[in-house]
């Protein structure tokens, strides 16, 4: 499992009810069902991913997240997860607000656009970064709303969201210390554990 998904699992209580937005091939839900006896659903739009979920026996609902979560009741899930998908949304702030309406807690992971490699690429070449972490050209990418850790935290403040935990992930162990020192410069992936202010 991807390193960010391992961390996600740490913040999920056994037996809880999970909604996984952009659930991919369903591996997170499957592993959480096996290790933490969670119940839940994944939302996806990619036919290949939907088929993969069904093959794993993971509940998957074909639903376009850009059209919102209006069909889900307030606080109807313990945790709403969105791993590496918020940067692909048309309106990340609306999705985030909706997630916090539907879930008692939320976990969001995304790639850090403030990582030094991205900054270096833009500063040196004057072009949008293309790297092993961000492998798409600007004109043909699912990632339409990049942000940095700082950007995300500003949005959380504006939406009155409490950050319960933040974990910064790096691929190589050597970068870990640097990321602890300057997360917005050296962190590759952010994992945020959130709840709405005034929530439970």
């Amino acid at each position, binding site marked *: 499992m991807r390193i960010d998904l391992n961390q996600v699992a740490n913040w999920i209580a056994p037996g809880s009810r999970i909604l996984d937005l952009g659930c991919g091939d369903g591996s997170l839900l499957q592993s959480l069902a096996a290790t933490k006896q969670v119940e839940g659903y994944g939302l996806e739009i990619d*036919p290949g991913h*939907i088929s993969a979920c*069904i*093959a794993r*026996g993971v*509940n998957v*609902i*074909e639903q376009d997240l850009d059209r919102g979560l209006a069909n889900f009741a307030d606080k*109807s899930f313990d945790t709403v997860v969105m791993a590496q998908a918020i940067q692909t949304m048309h309106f990340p702030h609306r999705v985030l607000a909706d997630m916090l309406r539907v879930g008692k807690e939320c976990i969001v992971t995304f790639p850090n656009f403030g990582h030094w490699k991205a900054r270096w690429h833009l500063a040196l070449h004057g072009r949008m970064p293309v790297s092993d972490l961000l492998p798409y050209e600007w004109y043909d990418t699912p990632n339409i709303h990049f942000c940095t850790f700082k950007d995300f935290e500003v949005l959380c403040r504006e939406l009155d969201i409490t950050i319960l935990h933040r974990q910064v992930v790096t691929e190589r162990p050597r970068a870990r210390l640097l990321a602890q020192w300057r997360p917005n410069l050296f962190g590759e992936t952010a994992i945020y554990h959130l709840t709405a202010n005034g929530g439970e």
Partner: protein
Amino acid sequence: MGLVQPQTLHCDQPLLLANGRQLDGYDLVFETYGQLNRDKTNAVLICHALSGNHHAAGFHTAEDQKPGWWDNYIGPGKPIDTDHFFVVSPNNIGGCHGSTGPRSINPQTGKPWGADFPNLRVRDWVETQVFLADHLGIEQWAAVIGGSLGGMQAMRWALEYPGRLRHCVAIASAMKLTAQNIAFNETARQAILSDPHFFDGDYAARDSYPKKGLSVARMIGHITYLSDDGMGQKFGRELRSGSFERGTDEPVEFEVESYLRHQGDAFSQRFDANTYLLMTKALDYFDLAREYDNDPIAAFRHARCRFLVIAFTTDWRFSPLRSREIVDALIGANRAVSYAEIDSHFGHDAFLIPNRRYSDVFRRYMLNICRESP
């Protein structure tokens, strides 16, 4: 699937119907495909739609032009794989293909039932299917599967006999019809009722048949089972005969006109007008949650099985929105469900037609059922 044989099961226990009337006994015609395993855990029930019957797969004779109505999806190596599953496919009572219906003889009068055959609801069919399951020794279906009106039966099973199925597959279905959908049914019924050969449903006794009315009813239905797009691609404005040349008064016939008339004609020969009225009424009356305080979430809380719901993008008779309502209610009731919305330009008929993604989703879901232990 090869050659298949229908069987007939007679029930001599009275069946109390949802409308309060009673059928003293009835025949149920059904087909089976594949082998029932020793523990009887691999049985799958197929519920047919408005104009379907028990002949879902294979051929009756080597000379048959067409296989059963769901042969694309039932058979060895197909999504409902008869190498794994024992498939049971009955003809619903009220039908016109062997099970007791308006064409059968009413034992009390010695004449065909005709219009006097009792109105049926989806739950009545489920009761007869329970009798069939008992007869076959099937305590619990691995899955109950149906498209359209068949999906309604599958969902009714899930609510009324929760312990007797492990999976419910509802394809291109709905928890209840919309006003527009009922309106189409009523227009079709009026076509039959206004045919002078209908004789208030007693046409059989008078050696008559409302062929024209039934044909028009089918034409109306058929239009709603296709999509604008699909009809455009299949027929466009192609002419079957005549031309638009100036100065000619030749009558023009569009391909789509001739196609619809042919469909109507063929259908009126193989179907029964009273059955058509009965089936469309059963569709109209179906309301999954009516007896659960009109609360679909409360209704689905009675279900114990897992669900697969499938809809098709251009289906406007049973639109994806109706399937989404099913899915949302199931999520509200905290029931296991997966949902796929399949791209197809075949409208409502898409559930019968080969489609790569539909097949893939269906096959994977069914394979999982094989793998799990009951």
